């Protein structure tokens, strides 16, 4: 660890360190929750393994939320490990890095990991035999703590770091919240059954996780760090506590506490909102972010990735993935380079591919089935489950809802799942919103406890999509109506203007006629002033000849213009106003 470069006596810093370790926080409880069988062993007991590089790696050029990514490499380019392969032009999604050296051989369509199993374009990277990293820019902790947080957050973005808990939200965006952050909560709950990658990470790389937490707290200015781990991971807690003794606290003057707390095992305690409620007793208000409460929640794996990015300069190119399920011959946590097809992981671990019934990406509660074994493992994938038929049996067909209310008791969002179900099924969209459909976190606790085996989450997903689409449609309809009304108004205005001009011309023609008649009369009566202008005004009589000439010229030009316009109108009466329309049609709405 870094040397103590303070003038304080060592004793004092020792005292401070002791006050930092405040592990007896009062804990709260959140509503509902369930206790499914854990199934974390044997994967969590087996040592971590590093998955060798697959022959080909696949990188979708569309994120799972649908944002397109732009490839920064071309076919036949040779890439080095850590080189950027694709980036988001809008600057929201962090870039994708090559986890291996090799050659880009194609951009092809392959099945995505998305529940729709739609085929999306993917960069295909053929890995080379000799691996070479890009030159990495390392930093010491001293350098990091003296760097401005904005630069660090940019580095985190450039390293491609997203939340590794499963949601894959860009970490840099989360860290650059304008609200004042007091507390950093490190999420090591890992509440979903089967998954043990965070457990394994905390056991084997506790120091990096904790250092990452310190760095994040420096980036956001948080004074308190709480690391929450469910009580079913005693080894992880011990390793964290051991590692905490040796952390370079003297570099982080502002830190007032670093607590490692044990929370009761209950699904979904690892949900961001639920974890916040457990630790602070507060609920994140609807429509607000945790930053509203001065909090920021990061997954432990994200913290480790931040450490790698800032200290070692290493971008996010791999992650720990739990491979488990009774069909997995060697269930364990594998360090998998991104882009690796699931097939490669399965065959490396000698999984019985011919016996597969279903393959679940993610946990058994919130994960989804994948339909193609070539689907690549990406940043959001924390677990691959290959269960036998009996291990995770398909639910029997749903029976009628008996309104038993078990779902209400289990719902961590305090919703009425049963009412949501009735209204989703009846497609009464406004009713679903009355019952706060969009507060549902799709944790599946309701469906888990349902004695009628109703696929509740499927109903909510269906309803959410339908409501979202409906709203988009309505918004589009409104915009279209406004545009249409504006167009009608504009056409009417043009029409009016045209009519006005016509009227004007008629008046002017009348005037000219009168003036000519008058002039003739004048000529007849008085021959002295022959240069009287046609549209003469009373004042023009006092003008000197020079000015008079100018006025004459202007009048002539006007006359000519009018004639020209008249001619043009006659020529193309059908599309006379096209030029005007062109000018106006781009008007922003």
């Amino acid at each position: 660890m870094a040397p103590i470069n303070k003038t304080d006596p060592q004793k004092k810093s020792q005292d401070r360190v002791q006050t930092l370790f405040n592990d007896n926080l009062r804990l709260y409880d959140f509503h509902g929750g369930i206790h499914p069988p854990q199934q974390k062993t044997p994967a969590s007991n087996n040592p971590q393994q590093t998955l060798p590089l697959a022959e080909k790696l696949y990188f979708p050029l569309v994120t799972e939320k649908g944002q397109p990514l732009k490839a920064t490499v071309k076919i036949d380019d040779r890439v080095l490990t850590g080189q950027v392969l694709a980036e988001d032009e809008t600057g929201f999604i962090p870039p994708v890095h090559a986890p291996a050296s090799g050659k880009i051989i194609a951009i092809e369509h392959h099945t995505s990991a998305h529940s729709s199993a739609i085929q999306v374009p993917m960069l295909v990277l053929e890995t080379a035999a000799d691996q070479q990293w890009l030159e990495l820019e390392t930093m010491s902790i001293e350098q990091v703590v003296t760097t401005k947080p904005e630069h660090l957050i940019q580095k985190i973005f450039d390293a491609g770091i997203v939340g590794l808990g499963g949601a894959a939200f860009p970490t840099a965006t989360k860290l650059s919240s304008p609200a004042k952050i007091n507390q950093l909560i490190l999420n090591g709950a890992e509440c979903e059954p089967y998954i043990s990658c965070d457990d394994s990470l905390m056991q084997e790389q506790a120091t990096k996780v904790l250092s990452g937490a310190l760095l994040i707290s420096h980036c956001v200015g948080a004074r308190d760090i709480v690391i929450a781990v469910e009580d079913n991971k005693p080894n992880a807690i011990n390793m964290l506590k051991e590692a905490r003794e040796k952390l370079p606290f003297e570099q982080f003057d502002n830190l007032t506490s670093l607590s490692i707390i044990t929370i009761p095992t209950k699904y979904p305690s690892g949900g961001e909102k639920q974890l916040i409620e457990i630790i602070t007793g507060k609920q994140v208000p609807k429509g607000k972010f945790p930053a509203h409460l001065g909090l920021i929640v990061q997954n432990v794996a994200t913290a480790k990735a931040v450490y790698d990015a800032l200290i070692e300069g290493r971008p996010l190119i791999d992650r720990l993935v739990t491979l488990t399920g009774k069909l997995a011959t060697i269930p364990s946590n594998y360090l998998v380079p991104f882009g690796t097809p699931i097939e490669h992981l399965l065959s490396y671990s000698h999984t019985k591919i011919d016996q597969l019934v279903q393959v679940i990406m993610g946990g058994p509660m919130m994960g989804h089935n994948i339909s193609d074994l070539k689907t690549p493992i990406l940043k959001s994938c924390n677990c691959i489950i290959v269960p036998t038929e009996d291990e995770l049996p398909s639910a029997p067909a749903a029976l009628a809802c008996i309104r038993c209310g078990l779902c209400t008791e289990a719902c961590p969002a305090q919703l009425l799942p049963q009412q949501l179900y009735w209204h989703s099924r009846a497609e009464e969209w406004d009713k679903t919103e009355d019952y706060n459909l969009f507060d549902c976190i799709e944790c599946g606790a309701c469906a888990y406890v349902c004695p009628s085996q109703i696929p509740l989450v499927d109903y909510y997903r269906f309803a959410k999509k339908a409501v979202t689409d409906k709203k988009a449609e309505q918004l589009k309809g409104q915009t279209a109506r406004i545009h249409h009304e504006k167009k009608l108004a504009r056409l009417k205005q043009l029409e009016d203007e045209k009519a006005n001009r016509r009227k004007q011309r008629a008046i002017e023609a009348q005037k000219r006629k009168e003036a000519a008649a008058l002039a003739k009369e004048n000529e007849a009566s008085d021959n002295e002033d022959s240069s009287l202008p046609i549209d003469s005004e009373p004042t023009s009589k006092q003008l000197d000849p020079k000015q008079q000439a100018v006025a004459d010229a202007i009048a002539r030009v006007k006359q000519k213009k009018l004639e020209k316009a008249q001619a043009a109108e006659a020529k193309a009466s059908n599309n006379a106003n096209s030029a005007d329309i062109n000018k106006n049609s781009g008007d922003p709405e």
Partner: protein
Amino acid sequence: MDLLIAIGILLALGLTFGALLGYAAIRFKLEGNPLVDQLDALLPQTQCGQCQYPGCRPYAEALAEGDDVNKCVPGGQETMEQLAALLGVEPQELAPENEADPEATIVLIREPDCIGCTKCIQACPVDAIVGAAKHMHTVITADCTGCDLCIPVCPTDCIEIHPAVTGFAAWKPQKPVVQNPEDLQRIPIQWHQ
């Protein structure tokens, strides 16, 4: 005397409530025709004119006057039912060719073929096409309602119909179906190894 008091009280009540009603009638007066607005809000606002009216609002006005509720093609069955419910009339059958629930579409101009005649620009009811005379035109896809009014006027047939949403956004989760109770809740995946 009692009789007079009773009459007096009733009179006073009548006057008070009459005044209240009169005040409310002025204070909360509704501008325009709210029924037309409500009908207009139900229509899809594609302004396609397939109902034989020049836009959605004229059709809404005609509906308020008692026109048939089954003329909106882009709205399909759902809009027809909503209109019928609002107007309190019996739902009417859609023309057979309009029965399928229409998928939202937009148009795109095959730009190399565009000669810049501006005809489509004039035809577009929602100003979703930009361009100048003798210059290439293009469609603002976010504003296009898929009314297809620009297609017949194009002299070079360079306007194509495309689905409005593609990719992940176009995917809809299936509504769970009520199955035979003997079945399991699972769907086989077409998968080629």
